[in-house]
């Protein structure tokens, strides 16, 4: 069936081409930016698509221009105006236009894919060929922080439409976008396999600085194997090593340990129909004082930090480290006694196979179980596959839950979900009106404008949450990235982990 052999050579790698091998445990469902929301998907999306704004390196406090060369937010925080950069081109050489931007953003919002909430209630309009306005119904100071999300990458609308892209749920372009790229990023997709590997190649038509590596192979590899691979030189980057796994790495490898923006927390259900013990405020206090935070940090490894509040340390409004809870066994026992609950037995549910930054929930849960036993609280562990566990979590049926929250966008407003009656609050059985003062503090924070005001408002929300809320923030595990000596320029980013284009070969 093979015809002439002349064409074959094009499949073989050109000599001198630089290949970078990245090992990661895949959490990947698609390469369609309008649907992607998983870490690996965002990682790929960042390399293949460009967004209007972005962040510089790992600094998430200030959005910087990308496809848009500048932006202004109106004083009421409702209208964001962006000026498009000239000269940007897609992988097929055609220019990036305001129409492409409008189409892409509208598509994300109206297709009702996973990331559509990012633009909930945001109207996208083109004022002229180089100006875009985004209008929200209520003040939306977070919008500039939302726009860098790779899910909001700009598609080549012409190509996408040819392959079935529409701005409603009838969109059919995913198939195509999983095999090719319609973006303007530094890389294009060479091959895409959800379960084994994704191969990127440098976009020859890229208008910006050419990336250092011509070819990037992203492989789906278990954390343990990632470690072996990188030590053997089989790969150059390993993304998901746990704290234990990076200890004792040979000096020839660079290990970058950064506290991730993921916060692991414990939730105690406030619904008395779900539990007799956990709605009791004193009982929650006993939990809070009973957990051995230092012990958990030990499990998570070097580089991880205790989370003082629900907002991770990188973000505006995070609580200072000295406000973190401390273990106090006697205090916990006292609180337990005061709660009036005797010989409590509670069920701790958590996703068994989930790992956050290479850290498995399993040992954490076992540690917490052991900690609370010392206090006099019996914890039954109820691990379940994510699917099953999520179901109970989402329906607010978990007595105790161990989960994590990663920022959808690096702005504290993302964390208002933890308030009573809100997304996560409801999962803890915390109904609207259950804690009026906390809700009020949240409303204040949501509308505060100006960094200082927002900082103070969010700090107050968290302090109140820590006093009377059902959540016990535990730790921010360390994101440990190991790279071969030959790779430099690596920065950890809380949203897309690593920007491949930043990496350079020494």
């Amino acid at each position, binding site marked *: 069936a093979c015809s002439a052999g002349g064409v074959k050579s094009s499949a073989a790698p050109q000599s001198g081409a630089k290949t970078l091998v990245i090992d990661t445990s895949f959490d990947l469902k698609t390469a369609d930016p309008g649907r992607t*929301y998983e870490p690996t998907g965002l990682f790929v999306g960042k390399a293949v698509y460009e967004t209007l704004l972005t962040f510089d390196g790992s600094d998430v406090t200030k959005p910087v221009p990308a496809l848009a060369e500048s932006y202004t937010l109106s004083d009421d925080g409702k209208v964001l105006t962006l000026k498009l950069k000239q000269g940007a081109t897609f992988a097929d050489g055609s220019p990036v236009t305001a129409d492409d931007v409008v189409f892409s953003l509208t598509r994300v919002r109206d297709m009702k894919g996973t990331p559509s909430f990012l633009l909930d209630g945001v109207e996208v309009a083109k004022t002229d060929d180089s100006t875009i306005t985004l209008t929200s119904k209520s003040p939306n100071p977070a919008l500039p922080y939302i726009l860098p999300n790779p899910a909001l990458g700009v598609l080549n609308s012409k190509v996408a439409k040819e392959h079935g892209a529409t701005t409603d749920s009838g969109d059919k372009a995913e198939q195509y976008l*999983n095999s090719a790229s319609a973006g303007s990023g530094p890389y294009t997709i060479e091959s895409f*396999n959800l*379960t084994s590997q994704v191969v990127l190649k440098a976009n020859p038509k890229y208008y910006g600085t050419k990336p250092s590596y011509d070819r990037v192979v992203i*492989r789906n590899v278990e954390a343990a194997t990632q470690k072996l691979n990188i030590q053997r030189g089989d790969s150059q980057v390993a993304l998901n090593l746990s704290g234990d796994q990076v200890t004792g790495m040979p000096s020839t490898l660079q290990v970058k340990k950064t506290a991730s923006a993921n916060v692991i927390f414990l939730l105690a259900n406030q619904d008395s129909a779900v539990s007799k013990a956990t709605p009791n405020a004193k009982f929650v206090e006993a939990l809070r004082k009973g957990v051995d935070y230092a012990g958990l940090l030990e499990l998570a490894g070097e580089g991880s930090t205790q989370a003082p509040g629900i907002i991770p340390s990188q973000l505006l409004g995070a609580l200072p480290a000295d406000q973190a809870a401390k273990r106090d066994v006697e205090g916990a026992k006292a609180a337990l006694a005061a709660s009036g609950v005797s010989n409590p037995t509670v069920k701790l549910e958590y996703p068994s196979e989930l790992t956050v930054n290479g850290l498995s929930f399993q040992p954490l849960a076992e540690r917490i179980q052991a900690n609370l036993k010392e206090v006099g609280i019996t914890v039954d562990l109820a691990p379940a596959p994510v699917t*099953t566990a999520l179901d109970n979590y989402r329906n607010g049926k978990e007595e105790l839950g161990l989960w994590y929250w990663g920022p959808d966008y690096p702005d504290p407003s993302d964390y208002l979900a933890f308030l009573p009656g809100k997304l996560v609050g409801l999962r803890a059985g915390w109904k609207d009106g259950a804690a009026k003062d906390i809700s009020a503090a949240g409303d204040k924070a949501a509308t505060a404008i100006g960094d200082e005001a927002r900082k103070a408002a969010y700090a107050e929300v968290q302090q109140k949450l820590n006093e009377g809320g059902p959540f016990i923030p535990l730790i921010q595990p360390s994101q440990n990235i190991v790279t071969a000596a030959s790779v430099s320029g690596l920065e950890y980013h809380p949203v897309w982990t690593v920007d491949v284009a930043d990496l350079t070969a020494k």
Partner: protein
Amino acid sequence: MTVSGADAPGAAPAAAPRGGRGRVRRHPLARFLLRRVLIAILLAWGITLVTFVLTNLVPGDPAAANLGQRALGDPAIVAQWRHEHGLDKPLPQQYLIHLQGLLQGDLGTSQQSHRPVSQDLAETVPATLELAGAAILVSLVLGVAFGVVAALRRDRLTDHALRVLSLIGISVPTFWLALVAFYVFFYRLQLTPGSGRIDPGLTAPPPVTGLATVDSALAGQWDVFASAVGHLLTPALVLALYTIGLLTRFTRSAVLEVLGQDYVRAARAKGLPGRVILFRYVLRSALVPIITVAGLAFGSLLSGTVLVEAIFAWPGVGQYAYKSATTLDLPAVMGVGLVVGGVYLVINLIVDVLYGVIDPRVRLQ
């Protein structure tokens, strides 16, 4: 009165050999195949039903596994997602729709990968078949050889040693062995290549069969071929250890049993050399039970891949099945069930055909 045959008493005029005469009947092979196909269809239907019922027994909601935490909070998105995947219909109707799709050759769309399940399977199944096929090949060669040696050296040291070794082979937990092998050979001794099917620096050959070794050989990419073989070696051996042990035990007893048969004694009484007796008389008969077991063993190899693939990052159907089962990806689980059940049936069919090839009693009814 006619007296016939009086002058040739022993000539046995009508004594045609049995089977030489007979009315025209439907060919036994055709009947056999028909029955097989009917059973296969029944089995396939059973598989869909079982997977459907099982996956719907799960307390979880597939939407939860497939949508982000934020999106889950938005009922509109959840409803939209459920509608897209037909989960808003009553269960029996969902099942019927699925069956209808199957009849049209459509395995449905995977909830996780958003791709046709058939496409996912087309990528993962060959990888697993390559692994399991290599393992069964290795086990057949080694297992049969060991078994024959053990039988011929019966009750001597070699036999005892092989017995202990084969029992160890069937006793080692595959998942543990995979771990140990990977740690020792790849990490400590740096002898074997790492995870995956080929070195990441190489470009995969154009898929023809889906088997990396065959495809690279077809494309004449010998560096890729070497890499593919190297990557295949350790997992295949790990997987094969159990079947090697099994086949060794089995071949030994099959050969011993045949050695005790009259016809072997008769062959020895004819003064034939031992080699001829072994290969022509003994192995031929022993092959029938051996291929039966090899067929069964192939099934257990497919199981074993689930445990081995994760450790060697082998992009096979085992990993896919694991992921699908834990994320309640109903179409994917059903697809895996059907394909794997199909493989089982095909293997059975091959075994049956081999019976016919080996044994004229089967072939000639």
